[in-house]
């Protein structure tokens, strides 16, 4: 029995255009208008980088319905990933402070990224149209005191593990998720490691030698801390 030949035809390769950032991106601009009309007042803010990507921010209470509408009306049928961002600058900087000196003053004002934001933490998801291959980043604010948002499992089944990871790393509750067990960490681990106010203990106990970043000399020591690797 011979392997079946695939049915798809060879598609012409895209023209060998040198990468140019188009100043006008009509495809994405039209898409953004269509998205706004299908979501209505659920869209709080949006940002478009021509030739690159679209960001929109939706209301927290309209999160699940918005993603469902985007899937059904605007045919964003591919679930890429879901994650969260903590916009608070880290109180520990990059962990390079001299422990003998008093702690330096840091600018702790919270600034959000594209498409704005009013809370410290945001959940964001990337969905893609599998026909046109145009992607869309959707963000939503989560309240500081009780970071809660609806689960996307009923819209994209693949959101399951991503929400478990975001719950574990950022402490965000996903309402309607059946099984928010820990994914990576031990069951009795306390805290949410990806929050900016969670210190990276490896940097706290031993000062980081790589403050000045230069190309290492051949034969020079490098202080890599990940010794995993060459398995299989």
């Amino acid at each position, binding site marked *: 029995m011979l392997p079946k030949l695939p049915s798809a035809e060879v598609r012409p390769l*895209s023209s*060998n255009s040198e990468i140019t950032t188009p100043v006008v991106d009509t495809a994405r601009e039209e898409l953004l208008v269509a998205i706004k009309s299908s979501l209505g007042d659920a869209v709080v803010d949006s940002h478009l980088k021509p030739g690159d990507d679209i960001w929109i921010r939706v209301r927290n209470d309209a999160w699940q319905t918005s993603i469902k509408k985007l899937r059904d009306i605007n045919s964003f*049928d591919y679930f890429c990933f879901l*994650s969260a961002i903590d916009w608070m600058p880290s109180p520990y900087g990059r962990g*390079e402070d001299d422990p003998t000196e008093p702690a330096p003053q840091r600018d702790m004002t919270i600034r959000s990224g594209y498409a704005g934001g009013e809370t410290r933490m945001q959940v964001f998801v990337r969905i893609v149209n*599998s026909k046109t291959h145009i992607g869309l980043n959707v963000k939503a604010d989560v309240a500081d005191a009780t970071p809660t948002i609806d689960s996307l499992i009923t819209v994209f089944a693949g959101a399951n593990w991503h929400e478990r990871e975001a719950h574990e790393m950022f402490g965000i509750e996903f309402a309607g998720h059946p099984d928010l067990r820990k994914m990576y960490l031990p069951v009795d681990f306390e805290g949410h*490691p990806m929050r900016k106010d969670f210190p990276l203990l490896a940097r706290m106990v031993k000062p980081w030698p790589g403050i000045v*970043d230069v190309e290492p000399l051949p034969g020079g020591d490098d202080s890599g801390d990940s010794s995993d690797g060459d398995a299989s």
Partner: protein
Amino acid sequence: MLGDRQQLSYIAAQAADARLNLELETEGMTLNIGPQHPATHGTLRIIARLDGEQVVWAEPACGYMHRGYEKLAEVRTFPQVTTLVNRIDWLGSFANEVPFILAAEKLMGVEAPTRAQYIRTILFELSRIANVSLFLGDLGVQLGAITPVFLAFRDREYVLNLIESATGGRFHPNFDRIGGLKDDLPAGWIDETRAVMKKLRGFCDQIEDLLFGNEIFQSRTRGIGVIPRDVALQYGLSGANLRASGVDWDLRRDQSLPMMWNKADWKVWTHPDGDSFARCWIRLQETRESTKIVDQLLGSIPAGPVMAKVPKIIKVPEGEAWVSTENPLGEMGYYVVSRGDLGPFRVKIRSASFNNISITPWLLRGVYVPDIVTILASLYFILGDIDR
């Protein structure tokens, strides 16, 4: 989604389980696979609840290799991050560096010289060949055929030698820099690579003969672990797993990046079946296509520098960027947030295996125990790529 063979057999299995428990006071059995198992490419543990020979419920337990690269990246400078991301998918390390560097370059508005882009693309495809050729050999072992893995290790070595002679590292090249590459190619490398590509095409033919034409292999993989198109999209499967479900989508072709895939003539293969065989077959064809890409690009590398002018201390302007590429395992992307600092503010690593393996609780329902290994092998994951 419901109503296909697996869901029905799952319901039947559950009903049978309940009836058995009532009448015979028997219980289902829980089978623990791993954390150390050759089918897991690392340390993945799978907990499967069985009813006789059928799986009623299965769930992978991750976290045995979680290294927290997203947190570590926040305290590193941009050039230092490549050392970390190298170790995500350790069989195709160079391919992990490229999307991160491209994201940083996108934020900075820097572009690598054309020669560097060519060499990047060639090394990217070489890491794909090294990675997938091991998959092809390993596949045989998991179905009880010993020979293919020896062929795979023999021929992968040629590719690793090439990567080593160009970058200095067999597994962890750490060769990509913001604005270009660390070094130019060594003398004689191009001719050697041509010879190796010829050998690798021979390897693909051998594997096709030994394995894909084998009746046992076909009966173990055909119709096993079928993923329909809409389920594949819902779970965010990527790479060969997605194309085996009939989705014609290859990021190398379908997005414009400063890489040189569109300078070569090659084909994106898809398969309508969505079963284990289709996934393996697509990977075999992709290895062949990769050797073609490398061959064509080798002939047209232009002369010139391999490094653009970038400052010694790299500060990346404020902004957010998403870049993903078609890595050996699937779509590997980085969502990089910069605050105009030396290091990234937040890096979200979207790795292919995480999505690819998150389908297993759905996919393993109702399958028979020997098929667990086949299905996991055909999904092809690497633990470092799941746990990050």
